[in-house]
């Protein structure tokens, strides 16, 4: 066995892959949340639609997105492999269970992760797949309609936002004097429709509670696994893991369906 293979086939090597993929997914969450904050703007979805177009067409981001899909799969596959090995390490379980003090989230990462994987599949089917499907279907047969925005460049105010009739469009931005016109796929409308269903909103909120618990353990655990743990900076890692990843990010994401359901 080559040394490289030996490293990543060892227990610690497999755990390192879990840690690194997990932390990469954490950084993705920061980007995803900050971009999606555009949903909170009252501009008929202009900023959000422009952002969606940028994320799906800017080449470096497309490359990163493929790395991201691979990361999600790696994290899932390694979690399954490690869980199977852990089960094998204790073939006969205790009659009296396990009463050792440990956090609920830490003990149930597998269940939490499974719920999150289900969420990612549904989430991607409803937004990512709908958005991309049009690239592969015949021209004009679009599931997501286009919208035209006109902005006054002098004042920065939106002059009009108009749904375009079905037809053959492409993303475009052009200026006529002081008026900027943007034609973009109206993903914002898809979001609005989805977030008007109470059960869908509920599912998203449950998923974000799950995310919070998963990251409450996952973030600091990754640092333990990498060996980047020391009493000097351990409190900082726990602080970031708790407040940024288990509170701010899940609350920010959960606020989107809730705000759309109640206030839009």
């Amino acid at each position: 066995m080559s040394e490289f293979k030996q490293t990543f086939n060892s227990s610690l090597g497999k755990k390192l892959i879990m840690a690194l993929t997990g932390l990469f997914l954490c950084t993705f969450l920061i980007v995803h949340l900050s971009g999606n904050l555009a949903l909170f703007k009252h501009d008929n979805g202009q900023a959000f639609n422009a952002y969606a177009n940028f994320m799906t067409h800017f080449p470096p981001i497309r490359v990163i997105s493929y790395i991201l899909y691979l990361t999600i799969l790696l994290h899932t596959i390694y979690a399954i492999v490690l869980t199977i090995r852990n089960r094998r390490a204790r073939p006969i379980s205790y009659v009296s269970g396990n009463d050792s003090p440990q956090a609920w989230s830490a003990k149930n990462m597998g269940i939490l992760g499974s719920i999150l994987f289900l969420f990612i599949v549904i989430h991607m089917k409803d937004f990512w797949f709908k958005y991309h499907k049009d690239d592969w279907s015949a021209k004009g047969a679009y599931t997501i309609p286009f919208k035209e925005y006109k902005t006054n460049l002098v004042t920065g105010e939106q002059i009009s936002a108009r749904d375009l009739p079905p037809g053959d469009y492409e993303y475009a931005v052009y200026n006529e004097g002081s008026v900027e016109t943007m034609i973009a796929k109206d993903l914002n409308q898809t979001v609005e429709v989805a977030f008007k269903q109470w059960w869908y909103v509920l599912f998203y909120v449950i998923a974000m509670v799950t995310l919070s618990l998963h990251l409450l353990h996952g973030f600091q655990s990754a640092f333990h696994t990498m060996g980047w743990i020391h009493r000097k900076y351990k409190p900082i890692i726990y602080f970031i893991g708790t407040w940024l990843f288990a509170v701010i990010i899940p609350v920010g994401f959960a606020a989107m369906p809730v705000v759309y359901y109640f206030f839009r």
Partner: protein
Amino acid sequence: MSNGNMNLTLKVWRQKDAKTPGKMVTYKAENISPDMSFLEMLDVVNESLTLKGEEPIYFDHDCREGICGMCSLYINGRPHGPKRAITTCQLHMRSFHDGQTITIEPWRAAAFPVVKDLAVDRSAFDRIQQAGGYVSINTGGVPDANEIPIPKVIADEAFNSATCIQCGACVAACKNASAMLFVGAKITQFALLPQGQTERWSRVQSMVAQMDKEGFGNCTNTGACEAECPKEITLMNIGRMNNDFFNAKFFKEEKAHEGVE
């Protein structure tokens, strides 16, 4: 011998030998004194079993003062029972109440096969130690004490790791039956000291390789081991092991010791 006033119901794992499947058997422990240790209570039960002509309950014990690491009972869902930072032999019956049902099981891990009843074979730990848990120094004249200066903080930290008695409670408590707290402690005690530096990078690779070979599980940093360790070895030891392992694998020249794949 038994003149106390506690009456208990024991549910004990009985298994004839490694090959025979075991089962839980219920016993009565009567007239138990609250001042008895847990093992003395089992002695009383065994005495009555012997008098009745039954096979006594087989369990591991040796020093009975919490330093040898031999006793190993999983009591009511916790290794070494409900108290913190003690071994089973230091657990007293006053920690239980009259009429209580106590479930006693052996350590459960594929790498710790049951020998008989409550005793398990922990030689997997010995093999991990033999893979690198030592410092090779050729014999010669006795060196002066304090010849090698070691800061007190470092000496204390190394000593904390070295207090591990290899009882295996960490494996028993871990939901993944992982031995990483034990291996982490054994690696850390040498990695911190000057004498351990020579073999530092090969040691960590060899010991981790042997640990994997024995079939222990993979740590998920839940911290049950730290909570149950009778010697209060901390999770930081696992962090140090991880750090040394990746350091050795990615940045050092040393390979694992010969004979360990």
